[in-house]
């Protein structure tokens, strides 16, 4: 907090010091949940406490956190975005298709448009923005419930990926440059993608807490009609958020396609739900007006601890879904419990 420590002469008898905000409170309690789970995992799983393991926890989840940023902002305004997973697959596949060499093979899946890499990713991002624009149009202009609209575009974008790859994948006749961006590592073998994610998270936290744009995001979620009557351009604001969310998903898709040097139609299947789960674990309210990106990051770490410790305990992978579900319930009940006990 940047509050001055004393009220000063201008603030008279009114204190600026309440208890900490509910958002910080939830973020801190989720931090507590994380530490608790981490401790349990350290006891149950050999070598879980190792530094490298902790770094892996975060880095393996970088794409869910990327998606979670846009989803958090939208959920704070009271809107869902379930299209992000589909957009990842679609942009990944398109970036491959656009820059595969043209007419080089008998196999259809080996032929692309032969565009330069830069043009290919730019066009793939335009496609992502188009999906975001469809979301925004239906939600803000036609006032359709966002969950319905984005479930629709989730299918459409995933469907485009399916068509372009004929339900499989494209991974041949790619230029060398294609595999670079997703596989560059910086300081002690951390992927560039993780650095990009961290930069976006920091930017998001600053925007959310320090800017007028961030404040308006909360206003819309807290009371849409009051925001409108207070001069907030609600439609425009939500449109920007859907476009941004789609763009972040698009960037994620391009990075993943580059990392695996392939465009796969079922890339990160279900990640839209993981993104929503970490946002909710991070304390963002479905009712809107409440939440934070910092919370979302902690939500991601909690989910990572649970899944990786399950793997470490040699729990069979098919059980992981149940485990994820159970942890989600527990964490959300813990939040409710903590908030209800909290008196302001």
């Amino acid at each position: 907090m940047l509050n001055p420590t004393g009220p000063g002469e201008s603030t008279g008898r009114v204190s600026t010091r309440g208890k900490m905000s509910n958002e910080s409170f939830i973020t801190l309690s989720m931090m507590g949940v994380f530490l608790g789970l981490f401790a349990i995992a350290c006891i149950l799983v050999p070598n879980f406490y190792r530094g490298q393991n902790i770094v892996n926890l975060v880095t393996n989840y970088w794409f869910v956190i990327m998606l979670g940023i846009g989803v958090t902002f939208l959920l704070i305004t009271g809107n869902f975005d379930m299209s992000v997973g589909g957009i990842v697959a679609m942009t990944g596949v398109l970036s491959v298709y656009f820059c595969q060499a043209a007419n080089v093979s008998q196999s259809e899946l080996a032929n692309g448009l032969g565009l330069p890499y830069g043009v290919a990713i730019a066009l793939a991002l335009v496609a992502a923005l188009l999906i975001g624009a469809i979301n925004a149009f239906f939600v803000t202009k036609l006032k359709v419930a966002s969950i319905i609209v984005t479930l629709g575009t989730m299918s459409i974008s995933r469907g485009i990926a399916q068509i372009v790859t004929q339900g499989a994948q494209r991974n041949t006749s790619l230029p060398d440059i294609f595999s670079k961006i997703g596989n560059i590592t910086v300081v002690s073998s951390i992927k560039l993608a993780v650095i990009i994610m961290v930069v976006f998270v920091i930017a998001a936290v600053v925007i959310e807490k320090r800017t007028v744009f961030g404040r308006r995001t909360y206003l819309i979620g807290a009371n849409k009609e009051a925001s409108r009557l207070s001069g907030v351009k609600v439609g425009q604001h939500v449109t920007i958020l859907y476009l941004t969310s789609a763009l972040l998903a698009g960037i994620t898709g391009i990075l993943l396609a580059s990392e695996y040097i392939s465009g796969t139609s079922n890339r990160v299947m279900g990640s839209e739900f993981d993104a929503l789960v970490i946002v909710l674990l991070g304390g963002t309210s479905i009712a809107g007006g409440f939440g934070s990106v910092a919370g979302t990051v902690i939500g991601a770490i909690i989910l990572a601890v649970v899944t990786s410790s399950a793997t470490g305990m040699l729990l069979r992978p098919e059980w992981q879904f149940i485990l994820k579900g159970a942890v989600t319930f527990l964490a959300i009940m813990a939040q409710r419990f903590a908030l209800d006990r909290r008196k302001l």
Partner: protein
Amino acid sequence: MMSDYVLDIKNLIKDFPGVRAVNDVSFGIKRNTVHCLVGENGAGKSTLIKILTGAYMRTSGTVLLSGKEYVAHNTKDAKQKGVSTLFQELNVVDQLTVEENLTLGSEDTFMGFLKKTDKIKKMISVLNSLEPSINPKQLVSRLSVAKKQIVEIARAVATESDIIIMDEPTAAISECEIERLFEIIRSLREKNVTVIYISHRLDEIFEIGDYVTVMRDGKHIDTKPISEVKDRSELIKMMIGKTIFESYVPREMQDEQVLLEVKNVTTDKLNNISFFVKRGEIVGFYGLVGAGKTELARAVFGADPYSGEITFKGKRLYGTPDKAIKAGIALVPEERRSQGLFTVLTIRNNIPVMNMKKISKGGFINSAKEIKVSADFINKLRIATNTMEKQASKLSGGNQQKVVFAKCLFADADLLILDEPTRGIDVGAKSEIYNIIRQLSKEGKSIMIFSSELPEIVNICDRMFILYDGVVKTEIKNGSSIDSEEIIHIATGGEIIC
């Protein structure tokens, strides 16, 4: 003698924080009569009715229904005990048929399946006797508001209600439908039903009522047979009492410059409204519920679409709220919790929202400025809180309204539109808000006040317009010759006597 009374109210009191809404009210309602309840907004009628229907619990006092102690815990409980209510928001399900609506909530079933029973037959025969033109198999969504009301009345009669409370039943129906409704109300007397009738339209009271009870400022003023009430003006006198509007001091307008001009504004609720507002002027709009006040306030602010022309500072306004705010207009909306306040956010986050530019630079919020602004307003408007980090939802109604005021004041507007600025807040906070309004006008701001409380309008406005049914009926300059009876006469639909 006592058995004559179906309902006997004794020393009924209802306290809300800071205000006694029903103050030691006692009166009786005779069986099989139409008993009218009148009073200005805030007189305590609604609170009294809400106690009878179980929406509120009384603070003290007794109510006897047919001689037995009566306490309702909710509307369903009230209904079972014999008190049905015809609310303004009708309690019918559009997607079901008339027949299904009649038995809704009291269906007879056999292992979960609906049974056709005598109950349904009885319901339908009651409906038939009231209004033969309604087909029980019809979907309710295809009925007019008036016919939906009749379905509700039939349900109440068939379940053997002793009392049906009708809250402004004629507000949303046409002239000939009103006639039909009145015929039905008259026929209810023979069906052993007592009607408590609430309406702002005084002519209806004389047409349909047997008795009338007048309330004012939470107190019972009088109950007497309609035949003993001479005319409207006697009723109006009882309603407003000896209110003397002494706090208004006539002022000479120093500035003759017209700030806002409204020409032929029409919406589906408003009809061809034209007026102007000068700089520094306080202009009031008085009218009863449904007269079109909120619609007019929202049209000027650009919150709802309209046809017509609105000019502000000589420039045409094209309505959206963000443009209106930029031009220098701010609105304190009618519903503070749903339209004015961000209840889940803190006071500090609420106050600056209409003018974020002033506390930010290049899109970044300057926290120090935000804190100073909030603290200044909390001090200036005396918002009762120990910290600006308190959630707005945790404040009392009056303090919430002050936060909404602070929000609008911070917008630095030249024209403030106040829609029911003191609704639901206590007397102390009210007078503080009046002081703020007077102070603002001294600073050269223009103010439009939309209110259904006459004293509020007469106390502070330089000029006032009376609205009835979406039309400006007349314009009055405030001063010594103000005739509040005449104003109420016009606002309740009476003809203008010149």
